[in-house]
C-alpha cells in the first residue's frame, strides 16, 4: 500500500528528472530572492546556470546548523511574515535555539510526507494512532498528528507524560499504533508491567513509529518481541521540517522521498560525495520548501545509501539506520572511526563484558587508538598465552571492523567508567 503510488513508485529516471527540475527552480528562486543564498553562491563561485545536471548539486555551498543560529530568528526566511502559518523551535541544547517557519504549503507537504510514511507502515483508515510525541514547539507531536489525520486514521493526541493514563486510553480507545520515542515506549511498557497490563495480550497495539533519538536493531528486536508489535524507524529533523521519512513494511532502511528531498552522502572531512553503500554524513536539500529553504544541509547524521531497490516497489532511495553523529567521529590516520562501530564489533566477542573505553593519542605525528576492554570474570584464564589470545582476537576483530589497526588493553573488571544515559567512551589526548 502506498499513499501516492504515482510518485512513490515512479520509475527512477523520471524521479531524477523531477528532482532536477525542482532543484533548478529552487536555486534560481533563491539566487533571485534571498540575499543569504545569493551571497553564499557568489562567494562559492557558483551561479544557477552552472546547475546543468542533478550531479551539479555538489557545486552548491553547504549549509550548517550555525547558519540557522546566526540568523536567528527568521533572517533566512524567504516569505513575508504574514504568509507563515506556524513556527516550530528546536530545543537549543547545544546553543541558541533555531526557528523554523512554515507556510500553508510547507505544512501540507510535510503532512503529505508523513501520510506516505504512515501508509508505508501499513497504517490507514480504521487505525487509532496514539501520538505520544511532545506537542508544542517540538515537531514530533503536531507532525504525526496531521499526518495521521490525513490518512483517515483516528488520532489520540496524548503527547508525553501521565503514562498510566496513556495506558488506560490505549486499552479503552483500542489504539492500534503509537508514535513516540523508543525510550518512551520502553518506559510505557515498564509502567504497563507494574500495572499488571500486558501490551501484547491486553491491547490491540500492533505498530510503533519510533524516532527522534538514536536506537538500535537490538532495541527493535526487544520491543517487537516484548510488545508483540512491529516497530518502524522514522527520521527527520526540525531544520528539514520535522519527521518526514520512514521505513516501509520491509523494515530495512528509511525511504527518502525524492520529490521532497535530495540526499547526498559526503565525507565529513572533505565534503566530497561518497558512493552508495559507503557511510558518511548525510546532506539534504529540501526541494519544495517556501518559508525556510534548505540547500545542502549538513545533518551531522552518519548513514549510507542502500544501493539495491526496495522489494516494496518504492523507487525512492533508502538510507540505513543512522550509525552515529559526525561529532562522535574520530579520524585515526585518515580513517573515519565511530565509537558505535567499536561497540558493535565488541558485542560479538563472548569473552568480553561489553564495557570499553577508547583512548586516542598522537605519537610522533601518528594517531594511535587504544581500546580498553573488560573481560568477563568467567573467561579469565591463569595462563598468559590464553589472555594474549583474547587480546589478539579483539585486536583482529577491531581491525576488520574499522580498517585501521588499534591497540588493545585488557582491563580489570569494573575498572572502566560506567555511564548512565549517553556514554562518553572516548578520551582524546591529541593536541591538534
Amino acid at each position, binding site marked *: 500500500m502506498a499513499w501516492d503510488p504515482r510518485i512513490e513508485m515512479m520509475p527512477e529516471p523520471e524521479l531524477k528528472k523531477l528532482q532536477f527540475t525542482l532543484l533548478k527552480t529552487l536555486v534560481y528562486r533563491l539566487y533571485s530572492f534571498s540575499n543569504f543564498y545569493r551571497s553564499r553562491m557568489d562567494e562559492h563561485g557558483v551561479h544557477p546556470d552552472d546547475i546543468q545536471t542533478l550531479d551539479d548539486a555538489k557545486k552548491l555551498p553547504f549549509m550548517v546548523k550555525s547558519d540557522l543560529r546566526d540568523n536567528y530568528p527568521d533572517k533566512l526566511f524567504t516569505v513575508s511574515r504574514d504568509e507563515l502559518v506556524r513556527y516550530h523551535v528546536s530545543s537549543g541544547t547545544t546553543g541558541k535555539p533555531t526557528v523554523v517557519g512554515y507556510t500553508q504549503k510547507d505544512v501540507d507537504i510535510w503532512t503529505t510526507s508523513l501520510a506516505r510514511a504512515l501508509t508505508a507502515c501499513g497504517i490507514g483508515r480504521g487505525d487509532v494512532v496514539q501520538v505520544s510525541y511532545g506537542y508544542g514547539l517540538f515537531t514530533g507531536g503536531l507532525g504525526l498528528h496531521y499526518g495521521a489525520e490525513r490518512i483517515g486514521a483516528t488520532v489520540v493526541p496524548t503527547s508525553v507524560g501521565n503514562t498510566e493514563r496513556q495506558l488506560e486510553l490505549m486499552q479503552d480507545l483500542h489504539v492500534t499504533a503509537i508514535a513516540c520515542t523508543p525510550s518512551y515506549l520502553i518506559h510505557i511498557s515498564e509502567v504497563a508491567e507494574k500495572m499488571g497490563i500486558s501490551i501484547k495480550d491486553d491491547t490491540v497495539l500492533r505498530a510503533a513509529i519510533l524516532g527522534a533519538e538514536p536506537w538500535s536493531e537490538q532495541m527493535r528486536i526487544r520491543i517487537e518481541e516484548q510488545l508483540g508489535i512491529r516497530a518502524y524507524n522514522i527520521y527527520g529533523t526540525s531544520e528539514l521540517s520535522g519527521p518526514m521519512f520512514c521505513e516501509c513494511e520491509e523494515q530495512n532502511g528509511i525511504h527518502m522521498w525524492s520529490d521532497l528531498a535530495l540526499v547526498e552522502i559526503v565525507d565529513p572531512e572533505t565534503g566530497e560525495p561518497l558512493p552508495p553503500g559507503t557511510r558518511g554524513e548525510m546532506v539534504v536539500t529540501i526541494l519544495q520548501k517556501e518559508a525556510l529553504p534548505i540547500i545542502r544541509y549538513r545533518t551531522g547524521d552518519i548513514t549510507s545509501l542502500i544501493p539495491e531497490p526496495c522489494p516494496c516497489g518504492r523507487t525512492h532511495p533508502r538510507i540505513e539506520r543512522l550509525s552515529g553523529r559526525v561529532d562522535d567521529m574520530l579520524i585515526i590516520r585518515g580513517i573515519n572511526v565511530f565509537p558505535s562501530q567499536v561497540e558493535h564489533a565488541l558485542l560479538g566477542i563472548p569473552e568480553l563484558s561489553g564495557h570499553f573505553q577508547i583512548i586516542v593519542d598522537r605519537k610522533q605525528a601518528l594517531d594511535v587508538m587504544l581500546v580498553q576492554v573488560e*573481560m568477563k*570474570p568467567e573467561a*579469565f*584464564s*591463569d*595462563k*598468559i598465552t590464553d*589472555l*594474549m589470545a583474547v587480546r589478539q582476537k579483539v585486536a583482529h576483530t577491531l581491525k576488520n571492523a574499522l580498517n585501521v589497526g588499534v591497540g588493545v*588493553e*585488557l*582491563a*580489570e*573488571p*569494573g*575498572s572502566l567508567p560506567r555511564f548512565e544515559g549517553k556514554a562518553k567512551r572516548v578520551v582524546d589526548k591529541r593536541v591538534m
Partner: protein
Amino acid sequence: MDTENFTIKQISVFSENRPGRLAAIARALQEEEINIFAFSIAEAKGFGVVRALVDKPGVAYKKLTELGFMVSFTDVIAVKMRDEPGGLFEIAKILGEAEVNIEYAYAYSGKEVAVLILRVDHVDDAIRRIRGAGGELLQSSLFT
C-alpha cells in the same frame, strides 16, 4: 587418590600493569589474615597475572572477587627440593623423562627446605613419577 592429596589450589589474579595493583591485592589478603607461602607475577604487555599459594585459598578467592578482581583457582603441585646444587635438576629430570611439560614454575627457598611449584600438563603422571622416584610433595591439606 594421590592426585587429590597433592593437587594444590593456587589462586591466580588478573592485574593491570600499573602502580598500586599488587598493593591492593596484598592489602586484601592482609585484611583477611591470609598468609602467603609463595607467589609470583607473570607479566605481559599491559597486564599481569599474580599467582599465589596461600593458607586459605577459599577466603582469598571470595575476598578478591568481592573487590572486583578476576580470580581463578589453578591446580599446581609443590615439590620439595634439596637446597643444594643439583636439587632442581633432580626434579626437572624426572618430569622431562616422563614427558610431562611444565607450563610455568616458581620456587621458594626456606630455612630447611626449598620448594618448587609447578603447573604441568599431566598432573597425575607428574605426581606418580615424582613419588615413584622418591620425591616428596607438599600435601594439599596445608592449603585449605
